[in-house]
């Protein structure tokens, strides 16, 4: 994607500022920063929930950093970081997890188990 500055490697980003309240569905190829409130379905590459931010609903991203609050259903495919001011309550799936002291994690927590690589069956040749 080429952005307005002519950068070819730019990925679309969304910033939900403090005081902004959004409900609905979003698919974002790049970073989503939430300092306001979001309720709904969100799929992004990276998600950053700021101190004043709240994300609720079905949230899915490769990497997630939580400084505010996240509720209901969260999937962090690669990495989930809960900072000391962050709180997550609900169903959480993660690839790797870091929780700083003071962070909150409540609900059902599970690690995403990577799918086993497909086993290739090679037939034995006569004489092997």
């Amino acid at each position, binding site marked *: 994607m080429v952005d307005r500055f002519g950068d070819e490697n730019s990925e679309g980003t969304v910033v939900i500022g403090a005081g902004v309240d959004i409900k609905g569905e979003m698919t974002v190829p790049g970073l989503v920063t939430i300092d306001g409130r979001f309720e709904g379905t969100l799929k992004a590459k990276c998600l950053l929930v700021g101190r004043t931010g*709240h994300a609720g609903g079905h949230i899915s991203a490769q990497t997630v950093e939580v400084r505010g609050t996240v509720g209901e259903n969260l999937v962090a495919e690669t990495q989930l970081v809960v900072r000391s001011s962050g709180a997550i309550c609900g169903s959480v799936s993660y690839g*790797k997890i*870091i929780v700083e002291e003071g962070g909150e*994690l409540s*609900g059902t927590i*599970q*690690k995403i188990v990577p799918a086993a690589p497909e086993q290739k069956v090679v037939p034995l040749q006569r004489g092997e």
Partner: protein
Amino acid sequence: MYDNSFIMVPQHEDEVADYDWENFPPSKYQKGKTSFSIIDESTGIEGKLIAGTAFIHGRVQGLVFAEHVTVEPTGRVDGVIFCRTLTVMGAVGANVICDTLRVRNGGQLSATLKYRTIKIEPGGLVGGQFERRVVIDGRSQPSFSGRRQDP
């Protein structure tokens, strides 16, 4: 000789959540002393382990009731853990009620967990049902800050 057979093990989770660790007999007994319990790699315990401070390198199946518990990289605990601080570097598959939990690199915790403070370091693995408890008016209660609804 110290006898801990009179210690009442809490029967209800609220009793543990509000437990008066300052007056926990094994901790009072070891106060001012450099004493702790080590379950070494070759040791397996089935039953109750009551101690002030316990370092578990071996395997415990049953109840661990101690002020400070460390499950070392070779250690494994299955059953129930009631403690003030729990550090996991090995494996825990238990019903855990503690004040402070730290899961360190290589630690694996699969638990029904009630805690006040949690820290998971990079490389730690956790799973299960977690609930944070906070003290309000001297009583330990579930925290719902994750469900906080701002106006």
